[in-house]
């Protein structure tokens, strides 16, 4: 709903809107009905295809897949935060010999496709026999990519703190370390929290790439289940179940991000905390890998 574009409608516009509304609803419901009918015609609602979900062994497999997804996402999230913090610190360093390589590394990992990053660890492991399974390929890939994005988020957050605060802190005789740790970072983190959580949604979704390098996460398990002849190749039912799980998980995180955003916006009005990033820098919008 955007008040930018139209006024409060008058009687004629109201009528017109109501008619378009009905037309659109009819078209949408028609499309959904067609899809459901199609699923019915092709036997996608047959009990045989859905029966497997009643078995506890199948439920356990799904749960294992989900746990594997969460395990990889959780570990990668922690490592990515550490990576991001270290590289954000390096990027705002006063020493050029620290700043330049850090910038190059962050830019490099943001530019390379995540799957290729995972391939490095996956094929590197095979070639050198490092004994790191696909799990580590997923975790390290996610860490490097999301860590770099997080480094940018942290850095932008620090840069968004009004300059006067830094100057005041230096004037009080604080060291650079103290200025960053006591003054800039707490504000940056609270301002950037929504963006950080959005990036974690991206990270969680990207664990699904593990499917390609044979890590037994949720989607991998779903593919195995969908390919079972005994249940008539129930690809569609399993993917629907999987999608519901993913959408549920990510929506919860997205809701958290939105809540944090609302909270920080409310607080900003009172305390004058740093302004939000301009549109162009909002990482939550631009990183849909």
């Amino acid at each position, binding site marked *: *709903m955007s008040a930018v574009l*139209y006024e409060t409608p008058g009687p004629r516009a109201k009528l017109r809107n109501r008619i378009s509304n009905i037309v659109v609803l009819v078209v949408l419901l028609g499309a959904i009905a067609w899809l459901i009918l199609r699923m019915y015609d092709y036997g996608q609602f047959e009990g045989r295809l859905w029966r497997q979900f009643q078995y506890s062994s199948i439920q356990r497999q799904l749960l294992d897949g989900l746990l594997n997804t969460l395990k990889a996402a959780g570990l990668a999230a922690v490592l990515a935060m550490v990576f991001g913090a270290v590289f954000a610190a390096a990027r705002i360093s006063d020493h050029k010999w620290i700043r330049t390589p850090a910038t190059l590394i962050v830019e490099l990992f943001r530019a390379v496709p995540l799957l290729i990053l995972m391939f490095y660890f996956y094929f590197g492991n095979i070639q050198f026999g490092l004994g790191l399974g696909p799990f580590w390929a997923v975790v390290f890939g996610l860490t490097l990519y999301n860590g770099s994005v997080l480094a940018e988020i942290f850095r932008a957050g620090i840069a968004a703190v009004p300059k006067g605060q830094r100057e005041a802190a230096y004037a009080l005789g604080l060291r650079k370390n103290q200025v960053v740790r006591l003054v800039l970072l707490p504000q940056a983190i609270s301002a950037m929290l929504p963006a950080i959580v959005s990036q974690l949604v991206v990270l969680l979704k990207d664990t699904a790439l593990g499917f390609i390098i044979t890590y037994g996460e949720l989607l991998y398990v779903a593919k195995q289940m969908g390919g079972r002849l005994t249940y008539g190749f129930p690809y569609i039912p399993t993917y629907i179940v999987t999608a519901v799980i993913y959408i549920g*998980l990510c929506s919860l995180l997205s809701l958290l991000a939105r809540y944090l955003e609302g909270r920080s916006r409310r607080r900003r009005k009172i305390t004058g905390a740093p302004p939000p990033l301009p549109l162009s820098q909002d990482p939550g919008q631009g990183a849909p890998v």
Partner: protein
Amino acid sequence: MFSVLTDNWPLFRDGFWLTIRLFVVSGVLSLIIGTALGAFRVSPVPALRGFGTGYVNILRNTPLTLVFAFLFFGAAKMDLALPNPFWTAVGALTIYTSAFICEVVRSGVNTIAPGQSEAARAVGMSFVQVLTIVVLPQAFRAIIPPLMSVLIALLKNTTIAAGFSVVEAGSIPAAMSERGENQLLTLVWITIGFLILIVPLIFLQRWAERRTAVA
């Protein structure tokens, strides 16, 4: 190091060529569909808004790999499969990327000061005119940088098609692995290939950002 590339040049060339085609075709389609969805989300018709919101919320919270899996393995079960793997990959990338473009367009529209469209309405423009003549041209200026980010992500996302036996650049490592080539060197070349494609886009983004910056 160079022999890995030169000995297998056709593989690299064809792989990256397919990557570029995937990127361009799904980029154009996503821009069209995403902009339409963005318009839906700011329209006065509740059903359109609801559809846009639902689409965005579902797709943004679904892994792209799952969208691929649906189209490659699921759709065939209902005879809804697209004609060939290329178009199936384009379909998955477009469905997914449109949701992000929609979000960018919507937030871009919201950056326009209400006074702009109030003035446009005061001179008697209709909703479509306000949108196409006054709001969208200005919104595009605000959204070019995030739009470029979405397109860069799209280019990187094309690699996911490798998991579904589409022979684009991301599938080169597996093919090279079968030939017994050094996989890490292969990956280095693929990385360089992607950097060649992506770095100009990043510079274009920076340039557009400076060029279109509102003083």
